């Protein structure tokens, strides 16, 4: 079971630009590799990642088979309001891996 992780400055000054670092362990099976018998291994990747603050989207990514295993996605936001940051990764098999953090803006 993949276990995502995120890191950012959880207590920030209003207007501060925060770098949000994220990573999740996942094989990102591209769908283009063959097994020992020459058969294509079916694609199984995390195809989407989304970050929200208090339910409002801040950022999302749509990934394809060319994203490396254990995808890392870093981006920036401006600290404007306190609240719950939610991070979700969507697997081809329907699984959703989620993690959340509190952001405090002073």
């Amino acid at each position, binding site marked *: 079971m993949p*276990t995502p*992780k995120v*890191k950012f400055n959880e207590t920030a000054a209003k207007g501060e630009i925060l770098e949000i670092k994220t*990573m999740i*362990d996942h094989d*990102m099976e591209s769908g283009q590799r063959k097994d020992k018998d020459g058969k294509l291994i079916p694609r199984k990747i995390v195809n989407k990642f989304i970050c929200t603050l208090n339910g409002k989207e801040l950022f999302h990514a749509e990934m394809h088979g060319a994203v490396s*295993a*254990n995808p*890392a996605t870093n981006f920036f936001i401006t600290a404007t309001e306190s609240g719950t940051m939610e991070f979700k990764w969507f697997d081809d098999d329907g699984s959703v891996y989620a993690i959340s953090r509190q952001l405090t803006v002073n």
Partner: protein
Amino acid sequence: MKTSLIALAALFVALAGSAAQADPPFDPKDPKMAPYISGDKRSGYTFAEPETRAMQDDEFLNPASLWVEKGEALWTKPDGKANRSCSSCHGKAEDNMKGVGSVYPKYDIHAGTVINLEQRINMCREKHMAATPWKYESEPLLAMTTFVKMQSRGMPVQVQIDGPAVSYFENGRRFYYERRGMNDLACKHCHEDNWGNHVRTELLSQGMTNGFPTYRLKWQKLGSLHRRLAGCNEEIRAEPYPLGSREYVDLELYLAWRAQGLQVETPSVRK
């Protein structure tokens, strides 16, 4: 005169097909490189591209951190019939595992042989936790090995090669210098005689082991030294030995001695 020589050289290169690429920048006098050099020994870090070094240096972005966190969680998780965790006996890893990873492989009096850190962890599981040993190269064993070894980060590799370890060490040394496989190569042909040269574009390193387990860009995974050794053997079309085999543990001891004095870098990131 000089320019015509250069032109001639350029022409030669063009005619001869392109030669190997520019190497990653490395200045032995750069203070930032000091932790990765000991005498004439150079960690694989010094042979890596700057972007690979940066990936290792960033504690969050180093992808091996995903395994480190799993190892940290396992450290305090009771397991086996004894319902004990690592921390039941050893307390805080940060305090009590310091200097443990830098001295393996090591002769173990209870095992009556030289064992590596993976085997030591499994011995603990069997003897003290009454738990089943983890499979070699399994996620929990890699995670725990990495978590324990990284407690020695920055400490020099320091293995014992005398006393009861002598015959194992000699065995490992023999392996290092013995040709094998269809390509008929010994470890030493690439990593002792030709480090700094290129096979196609690939820059050969000194084959130092102080960063293992390592996150390999190629594997897109954390992996053990033994997996790397087996991979090396396969590349030269030699029959690899099983992971955890006597042969590879002995070679691991010899390689650790070659890396003696370099700092433990676990978990490193390598190509």
